[in-house]
């Protein structure tokens, strides 16, 4: 009668290392669930009524109303223009930022300042940044353009800095040894090594900007988002459905384009 007989039932090995740790993770997860749901201010009655409302809402969304297509097209085109223009502005601005934030190219104080800007800029959601640009530049697509350009500059600058930090030193030293200036070292030693990856990242960012350009309008920064939130607050659900479908189509198209270009580049 040995106590260490082989187990007769197979149990999958625990994912979190040991079984005690696995149980602890489960206990924490359940504890958190109970605590968070208990503290959240959820109106159960209103939530239950929602299921009936959902049916009503979808009934009113169908069929989507494309009658005001002029308004729809205007908003969509504005979103698309904001996305394209902001990506281009962002690419241009990201080059100095990327160089400044690369440890192997710039002096320490510049590096620290650029990294600080990147950390702070990445933290805030595009919509928060949009509010401030709306305050500074007034309602309209300019605020949206600047918001997305700022966010693109931060994102592309971070990616560029990381690419520059990972380049091979050989070509850079070779160019430097010829007596080239900083600009020449960058153009002939660094740029060829990072250009193709950075182009891919830019196309990816264009896709992200198309997505964001559809929402910054909610705080008045231009594009289709404003039309959408207005139609929701007017209970104009069949027009809202038409806008939602158009946004989904535009975003899916943007993603497809981005994938297509990046696949071709490889």
């Amino acid at each position: 009668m040995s106590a260490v007989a082989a187990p007769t039932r197979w149990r999958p090995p625990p994912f979190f290392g040991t079984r005690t740790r696995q149980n602890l993770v489960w206990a924490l997860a359940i504890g958190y669930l109970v605590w968070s749901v208990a503290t959240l201010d959820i109106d159960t009655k209103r939530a239950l009524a929602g299921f009936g409302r959902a049916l009503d809402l979808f009934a009113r969304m169908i069929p989507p109303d494309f009658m005001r297509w002029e308004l729809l097209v205007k908003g969509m085109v504005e979103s698309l223009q904001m996305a394209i223009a902001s990506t281009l502005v962002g690419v241009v601005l990201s080059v100095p930022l990327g160089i400044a934030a690369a440890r192997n190219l710039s002096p320490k104080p510049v590096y620290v300042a650029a990294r600080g800007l990147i950390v702070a800029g990445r933290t805030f959601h595009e919509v928060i940044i949009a509010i401030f640009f709306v305050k500074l530049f007034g309602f309209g697509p300019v605020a949206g353009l600047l918001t997305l350009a700022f966010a693109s500059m931060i994102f592309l600058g971070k990616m560029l800095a990381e690419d520059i930090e990972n380049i091979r030193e050989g070509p850079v030293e070779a160019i430097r040894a010829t007596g080239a200036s900083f600009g020449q070292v960058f153009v002939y030693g660094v740029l060829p090594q990072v250009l193709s990856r950075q182009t891919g990242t830019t196309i990816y960012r264009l896709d992200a900007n198309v997505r964001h350009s559809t929402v910054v309008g909610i705080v008045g920064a231009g594009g289709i988002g404003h039309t959408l939130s207005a139609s929701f607050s007017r209970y104009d659900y069949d027009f809202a459905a038409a806008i939602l479908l158009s946004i989904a189509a535009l975003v899916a198209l943007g993603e497809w384009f981005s994938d297509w270009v990046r696949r071709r580049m490889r």
Partner: protein
Amino acid sequence: MSSTVATRYPEVWRKRTPRESAIQWAWMVAVAVAAVWSVSALDIEWAFFLDAHEQAADLIDRMWPPSWSYLPVILEPLVETIHIATLGTAVALVLSVPIAFLAARNTAANGFTWAVGRAILVGSRSVNTIIWGLLFVAIFGPGPLAGILAVAARSVGFLAKLVAEAIEEADRGPIEAIEATGASTLQVYLVGVLPQVMPVLIGTTVYRWDINVRESSVLGFVGAGGIGLYLYASINQFAWQQVLVVLSAILLIVIASEAVSAWIRGRIS
């Protein structure tokens, strides 16, 4: 004879063939046209740029000093923001596993279920979290529930897409071994496939959670709960000193969640 050699080996070295450089030029022109079209039609009011720096200085001036007495007021919404992100991610995690199995080519039951799975992925990912928020606020009324569902609706597609890719790349060996024991399809999925994609599932979920903390900081703008409502209210009341406090709080939780997420992902891989 010399001419054939010359055509095969041109005297002057060029980086690109004529065809390649034509394509290069075509792309350049396309980008230039896109730039001109996108900027020209936007109807930019350049006058606003002239006094922008004064406006910015004025704004910063009004924000200082931050009114820290507002901090106790926003403590609860801050916690709510994190709850929205966490619970939304949890709902998405649960839903994403079956959807990933539907949308992976090698585990989809047939072409129709695969198409359904793919449609869910595209639909979920094509609509921004805030727009999902608008929709769920219209259905369930304003409050954190709409926020949780909005976060979940957007995250499901994100998680399921990456998990479906992991399922498609899963090692055939363990799957065939489980199949050989006479296991049912469900058992094969649970024992043969799921453990293989677990690291991707957990890693992606944690990564998405930290994105979601950022997203849920603005869900309040459309009434879907969290700190966003307080930020929006403070801005509309021109209470800039409160705005600075709210922004600092958001900065703190977003950076903290990013650090936690990076730490967990570092331990998994």
